[in-house]
């Protein structure tokens, strides 16, 4: 086996050094009746060429060569080649969590830069080293708000990603944290402030909103935060489309920001791995879950970085930890770090404007369900044929259409969520509009 670097002679020599006659003796501590007394029912190993061939075949069974108008939390953005060049370096790819700071300075400094840029992007003071993804960052933010406020009720916008809401409910259920939803305005698609105000009470730990929300509509975070603050609740701002922060005001009124960085050079990869972020104000730093890298010096006075404030974490506090989380998504966060440094101050803004421009070109051609301001996706209202029929017609033209919303939002009826990014071509948008309006 090509990954097993020993000859049989070496194995025999090593067994001999252990005083053993055969490899079977290595397992004498496993009671015979608990052993597997047959080979695993898995085919024998195959060559590298056959592995490549098999996965090529699988890749071809998936959509190939289609233009896509899907967004809904996973966006098609160009990935600069430099990103994979860097994350493929064995020193990043095959290293462990940087506990041993003397031989992990590369990963540590990269994470420190990541934390800094997430703060700059979100307007927060402190960001951790990343979370699994956006959907799991949200319940961690909610649990953080519960710890800070010592209240238990969680209010979440119905216009937040439906799958994020489902994950939040799974996490909250067994911690006796009631989760309640507030609605959106049927005309603008923005949060219905009156509904939020009605549902806010002095037992509310936090109000969670997404902006741009699941419908692509940009929210007014300030108005939400004002209502929350009046009742002593924290405001948790979530985003799924990180490129929007290249042009949108950062959520300065929020107390916690939980979001998804997939848009920053992380491949869609059928939904993961992605990288989530969690950022907050300085006064809440010690309630942040997850890894945190800090700057310090070494014995010779050189700048150095290390993991810090570990007393929040499971390996020190055990059942009293802020979270059971132990890793971040280091390599995926590194993709986002490289992306942010390549695009930088100008590039992210330009990229955001291109997304805005493409989506608004398309938006002008379709009937939009909501009137609120939108970034790079919107709800298109189908007037004629059901969305499923429209999408079937589009598939014939090698186009994957918008996401039907009826399953999650029956009240929206025959509507689809449509996204355009810098990768979307004008000709495909024209085709989409033509089929949609036919």
């Amino acid at each position, binding site marked *: 086996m090509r*990954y097993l670097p020993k000859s049989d002679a070496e194995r025999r020599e090593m067994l001999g050094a252990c005083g053993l006659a055969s490899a079977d003796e290595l397992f004498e501590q496993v009671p015979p009746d608990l052993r597997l007394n047959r080979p695993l029912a898995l085919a024998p190993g195959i060559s590298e060429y056959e592995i490549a061939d098999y996965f090529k075949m699988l890749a071809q069974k998936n959509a190939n060569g289609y233009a896509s108008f899907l967004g809904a939390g996973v966006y098609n953005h160009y990935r600069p080649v430099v990103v994979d060049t860097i994350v493929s370096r064995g020193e990043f*790819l095959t290293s462990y969590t940087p506990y041993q700071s003397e031989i992990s300075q590369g990963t540590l400094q990269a994470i420190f830069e990541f934390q800094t840029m997430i703060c700059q992007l979100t307007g927060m003071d402190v960001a951790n080293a990343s979370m699994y993804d956006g959907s799991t960052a949200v319940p961690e933010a909610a649990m953080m708000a519960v710890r800070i406020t010592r209240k238990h009720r969680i209010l979440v916008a119905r216009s937040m990603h439906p799958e994020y809401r489902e994950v939040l409910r799974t996490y909250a259920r067994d911690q006796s944290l009631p989760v309640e939803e507030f609605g959106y305005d049927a005309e603008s698609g923005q949060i219905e402030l009156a509904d939020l105000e009605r549902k806010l009470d002095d037992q509310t730990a936090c109000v969670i909103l997404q902006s741009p929300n699941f419908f692509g509509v940009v929210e007014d975070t300030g108005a939400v935060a004002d209502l929350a603050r009046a009742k002593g609740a924290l405001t948790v701002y979530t985003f799924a489309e990180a490129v929007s922060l290249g042009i949108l005001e950062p959520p300065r009124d929020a107390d916690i920001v939980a979001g998804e960085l997939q848009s920053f050079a992380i491949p869609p990869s059928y939904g993961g791995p992605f990288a989530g972020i969690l950022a907050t104000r300085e006064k809440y730093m010690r309630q942040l879950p997850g890894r945190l890298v800090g700057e310090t010096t070494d014995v010779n006075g050189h700048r150095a970085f290390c993991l810090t404030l570990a007393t929040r974490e499971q390996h020190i506090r*055990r059942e009293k930890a802020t979270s*059971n989380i132990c890793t971040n998504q280091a390599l995926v966060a590194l993709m986002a770090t490289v992306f942010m440094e390549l695009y930088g101050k100008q590039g992210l803004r330009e990229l955001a404007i291109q997304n805005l421009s493409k989506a608004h070109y398309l938006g002008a051609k379709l009937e939009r369900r909501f009137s609120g301001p939108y970034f790079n996706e919107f709800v298109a209202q189908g007037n004629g044929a059901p969305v499923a029929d429209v999408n079937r017609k589009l598939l014939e033209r090698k186009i994957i259409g918008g996401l039907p919303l009826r399953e999650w939002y029956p009240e929206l009826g025959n509507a689809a969520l449509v996204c355009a990014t810098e990768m979307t071509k004008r000709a495909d948008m024209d085709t989409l509009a033509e089929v949609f309006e036919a």
Partner: protein
Amino acid sequence: MTQNARQHLTRNEELIFERSSPGKNGYQLPELDVPEIDPARALGEERVRGGIEGFPEVSEVEVIRHFTRLSTWNYAIDLGLYPLGSCTMKYNPRINEAVARYDGLAWAHPYQPQELSQGAMEVIARLEDALCEISGLDAITLQPAAGAHGELTGILLVRAFHQARGNPRKHILVPDSAHGTNPATAGIAGYEVRNLKSNDQGMIDLEELAHAVNEDTAALMVTNPNTLGVFEENIAKAADILHAKGAMVYMDGANMNALVGIARPGDFGVDVMHINLHKTFSTPHGGGGPGGGPVAVRSHLAPYLPIPRLRRAGDKLEWSSDFPESIGRVRAFYGNFGVLVRALAYILAHGGPDLRNATVDAVLNANYIRHRLRPYFDLPYDRPNMHEVVFSDARQAAKGVRTGEIAKRLIDYGYHPYTVSFPLIVHGALMIEPTETESKLELDGFIDAMIAIAHEVENEPQTVLKAPHRTRVSRVDEVTAARRPVVRWTPEANIAPQTTAADLVGAANVQRPE
């Protein structure tokens, strides 16, 4: 000093913000093929930001050099043995990286039509089948994003099972040798944690267990082999004790690399377990993620698995959420799919026979280390081990040198340290897991380095106490880092808030497997 490590030049490299100057960039976008929209008009002036304050402005070549220089400051499996106990740092085959990047897989959107996702769904189906066969369990979810996430999922399944029988029960038993994530998980799932004392062999104490289990026990969380690297020979009896009271056995699969092809948790009484794809199935650790934490269960827990679940409909695969008793989603979409691709490629490369052979080599390597190092280091539980071995620093401590210092000295010899001060039941632990992908030559080099350090402790302890001597930075001030946390760069001098004494507890250089 052996020949395994010599010094070489590495370049200094500032933070990227310190290399930035206005007007530089590392990107170029294509010409817009639609009219450019004015953001202030489209979004409203008050919603539009200026430039992102502080964001770097650098060119492409500077980005490449920046990260290449940083990378040379890291240790990695690609450079050598990485003997972190319970972390299973094995070789990461590069074909796995290549196939995960194939367009049809890397660019698959989770909401693209299912008839255009059959290839991705087959990856999931085939990995599910393989992991069920390997674990001896009946059903599985691949949705959890990491080991700790899998633990949470598994305990939520246990809770749902008990809840469906009218009582979620109150506590979870966790042996004192367990990983820190176990008690943390139990807490988040709404359970009280009860610690279970190990017997004098570091194993589950059946009497203690029988005494602790009652109708309020939801589950035992057990690691097998345990964190001493020893197979829990009474695991089946322990399972009987729990099952007799209606409680479940949860297995932390961190040490599954010792069992693949040898014994199956489903065959020794385990009801639910998580599997760390980034350990046993060699998906790269990547400096701390991404991972993958599938959860496999016996059939009585299957109705509660997260949705959606994959099922066969004729010759097609389809996603179904029609499982009314499910605990719901634990993550958006279908989990860390890219990690699943790599794990499946690993399994296909080995196949059944070589998966078992890999286990044999992993166990052989760990026993070889035990035999070669036992004349020099104390073995608190001196018995045959599986895939890892735990020494203590008892002999060296007599000379004033502790496990953390021996670990730092190991760096000078060109090796990553073992796991320090874990498991907690061994005072001054040195926890060593070599994995199967180390040659005899590499193992001998490591062993020689450990022996050389043992001699240094006897003859020149100061050399060990002040290590490492040959790294870019040495003895990083972690106490100040925690007392005055500087967790982001700012152009001005950093003014950090004072910290409390509680923050300093555990700030010493302690590492834990995950």
